[in-house]
């Protein structure tokens, strides 16, 4: 899929921010800071991948952060019960898939609006996370796992988790932009009825997307837990808004049918890099929020304004030409 103008714009903006920050902010460009940056954006990037696919079909999944929390709790609980990590991780992914399947069933099986459903499961899954682990926290995960998540390849500059992110991003990107399945997602998002008439299994497709979303949120939960070596019920609370912000910033239409994965990844990196750079410059947290919000609005507003100014100008030129 060719990059629509918007996506190239956001990619360019992201590159510009990275370059400017490396030049202007001392210690932004260091390899250690790069590792921190990647670790910070990891959960958002992962969850944003499947969120993009879901939003392209015109639905939404607000329960991702709670799914993350619940798998994190589950991980702690299983570890407390003496299971080895090698068993726990697959179990957590399966748990994530099941949670996603529940969302998928409510949305496609019962035909409920996804925004409403996932606001409900947002509360439900977070609640269950507290049921599983209560007020406790589990912290004694083995060092070789926690160390791997925070570590870099061969102690160099490339964080281990970056490999995971890049691999999954590639898979999602190819699926969305270069497979018949990806085509059907755009069709569903733009006009579900026409997609149905074209033989696309609308409900089934959406169902599996929710399963994928749950699984990825589960994976994010595992990595989060290992990164902070702390399994807690409130892990990742509020992450859903950050993910939605990144996806929207990446140019995905909330009404479905539009958007690209490179755009979304650029959106994720842009937000994280800005926050990181501004924090290094001791810009306060409130200002960070204002910047995030303004960026979100401006990113859509400015191209719109530019194009409307262009058309007005064009029309005026035509009128003048006709007057002579």
């Amino acid at each position, binding site marked *: 899929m060719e990059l629509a103008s918007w996506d190239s714009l956001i990619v360019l903006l992201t590159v510009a921010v990275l370059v400017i920050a490396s030049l202007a902010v001392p*210690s932004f460009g260091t390899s250690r800071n790069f590792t921190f940056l990647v670790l910070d954006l990891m959960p958002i990037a992962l969850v944003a991948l499947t969120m993009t696919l879901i939003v392209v079909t015109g639905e939404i999944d607000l329960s991702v952060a709670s799914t993350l929390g619940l798998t994190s709790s589950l991980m702690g609980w299983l570890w407390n019960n003496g299971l080895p990590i090698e068993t726990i991780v697959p179990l957590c992914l399966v748990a994530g898939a099941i949670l996603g399947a529940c969302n998928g069933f409510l949305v496609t099986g019962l035909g409920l609006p996804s925004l409403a459903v996932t606001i409900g499961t947002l509360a439900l899954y977070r609640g269950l996370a507290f049921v599983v682990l209560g007020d406790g926290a589990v912290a004694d995960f083995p060092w070789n796992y926690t160390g791997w998540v925070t570590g870099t390849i061969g102690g160099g500059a490339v964080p281990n988790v970056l490999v995971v992110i890049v691999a999954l991003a590639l898979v999602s990107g190819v699926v969305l932009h270069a497979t018949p399945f990806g085509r059907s997602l755009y069709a569903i998002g733009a006009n579900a009825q026409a997609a149905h008439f074209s033989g696309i299994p609308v409900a089934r497709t959406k169902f599996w997307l929710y399963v994928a979303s749950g699984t990825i949120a589960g994976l994010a939960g595992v990595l989060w837990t290992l990164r902070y*070596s702390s399994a807690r019920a409130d892990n990742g609370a509020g992450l859903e808004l950050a993910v939605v912000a990144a996806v929207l910033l990446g140019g995905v239409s909330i009404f479905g049918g539009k958007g690209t994965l490179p755009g979304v990844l650029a959106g994720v990196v842009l937000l994280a890099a800005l926050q990181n750079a501004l924090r290094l410059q001791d810009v306060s947290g409130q200002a960070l929020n204002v910047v995030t919000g303004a960026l979100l609005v401006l990113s859509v507003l400015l191209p719109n304004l530019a194009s409307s100014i262009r058309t007005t100008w064009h029309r005026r030129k035509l009128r003048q030409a006709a007057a002579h």
Partner: protein
Amino acid sequence: GGTTKDSASSNGGAAGQPGASADPNASIKTGLKFAYLPKQLNNPYSDVETAGGKVAVGELKGEYKLVGPHDASASSQVSYINTLIQQQQDVIVVAANDPNAVCPSLNQARQAGIKVVSFDSDASKACRDAFINQATTQGIGESLVKMASELAGGEGEIAVLSATPNATNQNAWIEVMKSELAKPEYAKLKLVKTAYGNDDDQKSFQEAQGLLQSYPNLKVIVSPTTVGIAAASRYVSSSNYKGKVTITGLGLPNQMREYVKDGTVKKFALWNPADIGYLAAYAGAALASGKITGKQGETFTAGKLGEYTIGADGEIVLGPPTEFTAQNIDQFDF
């Protein structure tokens, strides 16, 4: 309790402190860079604490900086710690939102030569150099039970309104309260429920309502959190439960003045939060100057607060809490 297991294995990579020994005669360096990282910014309690820190840093001729998240989450604190490492601060004063989650980052900071002092809410022992404890956990738990017993007249139902279900310090105090209540002198006092207001004003408000509806014979609500005690007092003072039930716990005098005056609250306690931040700065300066290393028995002087001795596990205890009543509340302003 909140912390569950010790995170022995999670610190495999932590260097701890290089085997330096303390030099009691070292002079305190000036120009040190202090960064305060409370649980959450714009929380009135944290603000009072860090304001004390600012005063102390000024006295020490250091550079003071305050950073922190808005959401009281451990993950955002980690990002801030990472930033502070990049900026090569000399001392990080931190109130941990999760004792373990901040650990790897704090250890990275210590490897980079930064001294870490925790205050208010401790980080794991293995990843900080010293902890400023407002009062001993035991002492706070005991005094909460004592106040409740006095207010209830020695018998009847009491309930606890806590912060979030996994707040480290709250849970530790509640544990102590429970073991205190098991003692024979409190046999007639019955703890019927622990509710959680999540340090959210409204949720605490609703939880207080729920407690009173579920337990009509309730005599005292003990809320060991400043948000909870204020919300519960506000509810009771405006409802027809006023006079039947009384509130106590840990609160800020400025927030509670109104309810002490209207009789909803007879007595509550707190230490001076500003002193915690103040003490933390002096401890940090002593650490960064090599005067102390955080071992038990080392001593240092903390400005107007006088001399302190480090206790077991690097703990430095501020002192006993102050009890506030209608008689003395007007003498305090924080």
